[in-house]
């Protein structure tokens, strides 16, 4: 049928982002050639961003059900049960490409977008987090500008909208220099009875748009996100949206007030591909058709073409499917908030997606075909660097002479140092639920009027996944869960952000597939199902290549009583310090190798998922018994860094005696998995050691908390570390400032 493409000699579909075979397929679906409006519909809905063309076939690996899972993938966000007929809904989303071009607006609208996903579930947004990845700030003024603008954008939006930004992470590697990552997560709370769905049921029901006017901002954002970033991207500036947090605040309040009444059958936020994707998804879920008249959409610009109206990503808009006859009542509530809800179309029974302009049909395609984006299962190929990095042996490097200085360097290292510079710019206390604030293993938020709280974390480790995508991904899930249990929370479920390079490259596809398998394995072992997520592929630039494979794990947990809330800082001089887990001769993939030896190499530390599950259960158990004064996950920088953090945050010293046959750097800075650092009073410490033996978990009492202000670590009678807590605190607290000011 190629000779029939007379009107399409220029291959407009290629320009729109579709391949020849995709074009062929859509003409088969339509049984004719598309016009420009119809072509635009397919181009957006079949992009990776909306259609998950490369990732969907891999999602089959995920565990998506469980005792606490109320809603798995498929809605705006997943939902988990937190007892007492109350639920949490949460999701994360990437805004990488917009943030690379216009970091302030890119990051701000990323926050706004994910908040609306949570709102669309019927929930009040109670917390925001974000995971940020940049090149090294010492490399260029450009990166520093990106960091400042992204943080400013997140702050401006979150602070105004009144959702506390309670945690997240900020990590650095050269791999993100050309393509920074900005992933935002939001958590919402509601009663089980308040859950809303994104569904367009009821023939004749009205589609109402609420919130902002529709303009040309964010044109084609979904397809922009589904190709490589390159030099010409400044032309894509039109694909960047502009945020208005005040409008978002009004939307939240007004929508939740409307939801209290029985007027609305379905809700969907307008994110990627705007009116189009929100309405297609709701119609598809109900098996219905919809028709939308673009002339009815309130616009802020003149002479917008129908396809522009349909795919605009103007921010702060929601789509409501309203019961026939209730439109005025809905509008009255919005009016109270000085907003308008406008009918733009109806639910139909013919299964067609029909676009009208002033009552005249300008595009018409089957709803199912828009949702039926072709998927691609490719052949992955192991990246060449893995053979070399796996062959790394610890013997090839020498132990530094000055281990004190090594510790201080690590404490001030970009990925480890205090991020107070960042979270001081975020209102992390508004709504008055923040029990444990940023800078700890997990953010803890109380549930008002209940003796319980929730733990929220967001973690990643691109270097781990670069060196071993499968085990690296497992490790991130395990670490997230460790961060939950040390805070007193039982891990419930995760949302995943899959940030990768171009999946059409076999090596990237390998990383993607292996990471997904790794996440799946760890989630099964730790019983934290995947309840939703986001894929951001094509994160690469011609100059810097692909980013590290960076799956980001957002996790929630349940703290069953406020008395279980535990923090990482030492509490009292005289308490015993206990190390749970085995320290092995492992230096591969460590922060230490990267920062001290300038090496990104070696294999990711071993991880026994069965042991991990057992150890985590044990930690949670002893915390719930009230035996633990402080608990901290041993992660980046290893044992010595974890110890120093517990000291400096508690303003207390520590005296440690070990007896291990290990090289000093592996003992101090190696990142052996499944380890925890605890403190407890004498009686409890004894009990912890006993219980650990019963459960088959390795535990050793290794020293005491002191008020001497000294941090000393001895192994087999030999002193390895002898420094002051003040020096550690200084390194940790000034690291970020130094990094932002020093040229590398």
């Amino acid at each position, binding site marked *: 049928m190629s000779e029939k493409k007379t009107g399409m000699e220029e291959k407009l579909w290629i320009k729109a982002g579709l391949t020849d075979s995709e074009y062929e397929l859509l003409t088969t679906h339509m049984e004719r050639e598309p016009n420009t409006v119809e072509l635009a519909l397919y181009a957006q809905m079949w992009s990776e961003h909306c259609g998950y063309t490369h990732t969907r076939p891999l999602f089959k690996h995920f565990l998506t059900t469980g005792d606490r899972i109320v809603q798995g993938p498929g809605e705006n966000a997943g939902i988990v049960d937190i007892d007492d007929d109350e639920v949490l809904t949460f999701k994360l989303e990437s805004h990488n490409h917009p943030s690379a071009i216009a970091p302030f607006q890119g990051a701000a609208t990323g926050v706004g977008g994910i908040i609306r996903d949570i709102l669309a579930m019927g929930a009040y947004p109670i917390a925001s987090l974000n995971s940020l990845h940049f090149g090294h700030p010492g490399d260029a003024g450009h990166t520093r500008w990106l960091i400042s603008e992204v943080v*400013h954008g997140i*702050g*401006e939006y979150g*602070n*105004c*909208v*009144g959702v506390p930004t309670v945690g997240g992470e900020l990590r650095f590697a050269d791999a993100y220099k050309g393509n920074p990552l900005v992933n935002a997560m939001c958590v919402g709370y509601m009663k089980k009875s308040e859950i809303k769905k994104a569904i367009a049921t009821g023939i004749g029901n009205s589609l109402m748009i609420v919130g902002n006017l529709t303009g040309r901002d964010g044109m084609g954002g979904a397809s922009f996100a589904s190709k490589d970033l390159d030099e010409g991207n400044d032309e894509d500036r039109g694909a960047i949206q502009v945020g*208005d*947090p*005040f*409008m978002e*605040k*009004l939307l939240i*309040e007004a929508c939740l007030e409307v939801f209290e009444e029985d007027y609305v059958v379905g809700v969907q936020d307008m994110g990627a591909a705007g009116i189009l994707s929100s309405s297609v998804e709701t119609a598809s879920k109900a098996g219905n058709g919809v028709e939308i008249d673009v002339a009815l959409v309130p616009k802020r610009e003149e002479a917008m073409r129908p396809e522009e109206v349909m795919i605009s990503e103007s921010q702060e808009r929601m789509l409501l499917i309203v019961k026939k006859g209730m439109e005025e009542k809905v509008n009255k509530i919005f009016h109270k*908030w*000085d907003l308008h809800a406008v009918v733009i179309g109806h639910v139909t029974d013919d299964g067609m997606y029909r676009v009208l302009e002033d009552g005249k049909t300008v595009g018409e395609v089957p709803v199912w075909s828009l949702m039926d984006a072709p998927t691609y299962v490719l052949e992955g190929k192991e990246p060449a660097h893995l053979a070399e990095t796996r062959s790394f042996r610890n013997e090839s490097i020498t132990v530094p002479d000055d281990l004190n200085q090594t510790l201080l360097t690590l404490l001030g290292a970009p990925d480890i140092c205090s991020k107070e510079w960042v*979270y*001081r*710019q*975020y*209102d*992390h*206390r*508004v*709504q*008055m639920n*923040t*029990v444990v604030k940023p800078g700890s293993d997990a953010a803890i938020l*109380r549930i*008002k*009027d209940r003796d319980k709280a929730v733990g929220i974390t967001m973690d990643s480790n691109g270097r781990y996944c670069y060196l071993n995508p499968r085990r690296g991904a497992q490790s991130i899930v395990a670490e997230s869960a460790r961060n939950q249990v040390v805070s007193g929370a039982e891990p419930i479920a995760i949302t995943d952000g899959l940030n990768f390079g171009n999946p059409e490259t076999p090596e990237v596809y390998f990383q993607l597939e292996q990471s997904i398998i790794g996440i799946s394995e760890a989630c099964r072992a730790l019983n934290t199902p995947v309840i939703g997520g986001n894929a951001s592929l094509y994160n690469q630039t011609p100059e810097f290549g692909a980013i590290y494979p960076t799956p980001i794990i957002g996790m929630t947990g349940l703290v069953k009583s*406020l008395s279980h809330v535990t923090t990482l800082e030492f509490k009292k001089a005289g308490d015993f310090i206990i190390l749970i887990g085995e320290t092995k001769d492992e230096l591969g993939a460590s922060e230490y190798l990267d920062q001290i030896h300038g090496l990104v190499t070696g294999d990711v530390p071993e991880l026994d998922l069965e042991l991990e599950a057992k150890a985590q259960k044990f930690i949670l158990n002893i915390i719930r018994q009230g035996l633990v004064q402080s608990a901290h996950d041993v992660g980046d920088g290893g044992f010595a860094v974890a110890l120093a953090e517990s000291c400096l945050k508690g303003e207390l010293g520590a005296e440690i005696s070990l007896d291990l046959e290990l090289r000093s750097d592996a003992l101090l800075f190696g990142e052996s998995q499944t380890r925890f650092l605890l403190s407890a009073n004498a009686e409890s410490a004894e009990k912890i050691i006993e219980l650990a033996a019963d459960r088959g978990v390795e535990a050793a009492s290794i020293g005491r908390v002191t008020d001497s202000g000294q941090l000393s670590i001895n192994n087999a009678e030999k002193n390895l570390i002898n420094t002051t807590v003040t020096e550690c605190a200084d390194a940790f607290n000034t690291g970020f400032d130094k990094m932002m000011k020093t040229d590398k």
Partner: protein
Amino acid sequence: MNWGVLLFPGSNCAEDCFHVIDKVLGKPVKYLWHKDTELGDVDAIIIPGGFSYGDHLRPGAIAHLSPAMTAVKEFAANGGLVIGICNGFQILTESRMLPGSLLQNRGLKFLCQDQTLVVDNNSTPFTSEYEQGETIICPIAHNEGNYYAKPETIAEMEKNGQILFRYANSDGEVSEATNPNGSLNSIAGIINRTGNVMGMMPHPERSSDEVLRLTNGKGVFISILKHLEMKHGSDQ
């Protein structure tokens, strides 16, 4: 004795204030809507933090023109107690119910941190629960909290004991090192000449609930409560 929390569309600390009065103090409280011209039966009004109407122009610049603020001015003129917190403080200065204004922070960045304050005048309806010179911790969260007034105004306020709270260290010492935002004389909270309208940038409500491990901002609300109870007692 009824409390009112004034609700602008962009207020985001209204529920927090409501929570403290309702759940921590256990006293009757209701929301007042920004479009209301009548405030009804209230004895004390809280103007909470947030972004009133988005504050695109200047914090509080539009809010002070709202119908409810006209009613609040009348309420205060009749001796009613009004406390403005954060954005509420900004609205009170824009309304000229309190002297001075709040400029952008010295560091040009939004600042959210747990902040030590020292009580500079405890003989007011808002601070009677505190000892003179007592230090308390109240979180701050603002971009425009840098208090400024003309030198003669500041001198006048100092003389009249109109400074209620200053930014300080844990020993109660006030210096530029403990001044987070550049406020003149480290001013964190002030009161009007007649002693019934108070504004402060720090959030006492965020330091009022035991679960959050900060509680000594609660004294502000208890002071108001005791003042009202005394007044009601003497009225009867």
